[in-house]
């Protein structure tokens, strides 16, 4: 069973958001990394790049496939996880911790309320696997 921490917000594209003041830390969920398989490459934007909600901000590649990743909330990138360049596999081993992808200054902090809760996301992934 995939791990779904209580204190995060989730998107239907399988990203998670951790709110830290006016900033959002974004990554992909345990369910997502598990369905992707071994992550071998992560392409991330640059600091300062701005994204609308649900816009593609980069891609995650496994041996077999490429998947785009989307910003669940609008904002400007303040930091990216540089260590993923050399160790993309931490997206698999620690998707909610060291495997985070970008930090965003949110344009509309209220936007997180429209995302799924942990319980809702868990139901959503269950429905998707059935």
């Amino acid at each position, binding site marked *: 069973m995939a791990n779904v921490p209580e204190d995060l917000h989730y998107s239907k594209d399988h990203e998670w958001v951790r709110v830290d003041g006016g900033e959002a830390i974004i990554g992909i969920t345990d369910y997502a990394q598990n369905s992707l*398989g*071994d992550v*071998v*490459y992560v*392409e991330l934007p640059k600091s300062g790049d701005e994204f609308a909600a649900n816009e593609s901000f980069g*891609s995650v*590649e*496994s*041996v*077999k496939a*490429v998947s785009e990743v989307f910003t669940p909330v609008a904002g400007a990138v303040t930091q990216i996880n540089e260590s993923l*360049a050399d160790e993309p596999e931490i997206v698999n081993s620690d998707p909610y911790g060291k495997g985070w992808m970008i930090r965003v200054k949110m344009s509309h902090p209220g936007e997180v309320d429209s995302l799924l809760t942990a319980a809702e996301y868990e139901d959503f992934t269950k429905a998707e696997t059935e």
Partner: protein
Amino acid sequence: MVDFGGWDMPVQYPAGTIEEHLRTRTHAGLFDVSHMGEIDVRGSDAIDFVNRITSNDVRKLTDGQAQYTALTTPQGTVIDDLLVYRLAADHLLLVVNASTTDKDWEWIKSHHSGESVELNNVSSEYCQLALQGPDAVSILQKLTDLPLAEIKYYHFTPGRVDGVDGIVSRTGYTGEDGFEVYAPSDRAEQLWNKILDAGDSGSTTGVLPCGLAARNTLRLEAGMALYGNELDETTTLLEANLGWICKLDKGDFTGRETLARQKEEGLKRKLSGFEVTDRGIARDHQDVVVDGEKVGQVTSGSPAPFLKKNIGFAYLPVEYASVGQEIQIDVRGRLVCARVVKVPFYKRPK
């Protein structure tokens, strides 16, 4: 699970593609390739008939020997690539790709004219398990009295594995030593489980079950073509670097004239291996660019887990196909630098 030529096949097992790939290179991997098709050819003209519709020289085979060859169109392009097994002077077994089995079967039947042969599509009667890797001999030997170490590369022996009558062939699609075992299809599960047990599958140095994704990365690293990617009815054998299975002087065969003419006139394009030198992974169907111009397309592109590089195949105009040529790959709108390199990318230590 994915649909592969009408078969439900696992892309990977729980260990994951990278571990499956590495284990096959360092110890052993087991692949269920029962989806491959088998066509049985019997009769006094078996050799002459197959020799006329394939590009390699079937007459060179002895009993117990296998040969890599191709079914060719009159244009010298590829209907399918396949293995021919010589069971006897009047009995051959053709092992073909899953997705092309029906097409091959129709093609073979329709090109039969007057030769004394009996043709049977026996695909559903056989399972095929491929045990590949440096530990393949010692693992399989636990299940058979056949002297496995004595079977030469591209040779086979009919015999029993775990009491099941079949064919043990020293062939494979990974670039490693190993065997392909053909047996009655209802014994697939028994053999699968027994080979995993014999190979100490639970341990970190034991045999691992491998899925389609590892089969693809292993064959790509070893520089082997995949039908549908590198080979199809638009690519000739010479363009695909398969001149070595084109025996133009063996006598007439389908496509011989065109291939002989192409050989004389010279090729316009050639299948080339490349290695990405920037960060980024080339993928199937992406464009190859030189000096801002599209010059070709990637036929297979992937990370190579053992080499830890990103590699691929592309058809390139011969002027850009020399080793060392700098090219670029259009990776979803971003131009990524790559370089033409020698194939195979990986060669196992002997």
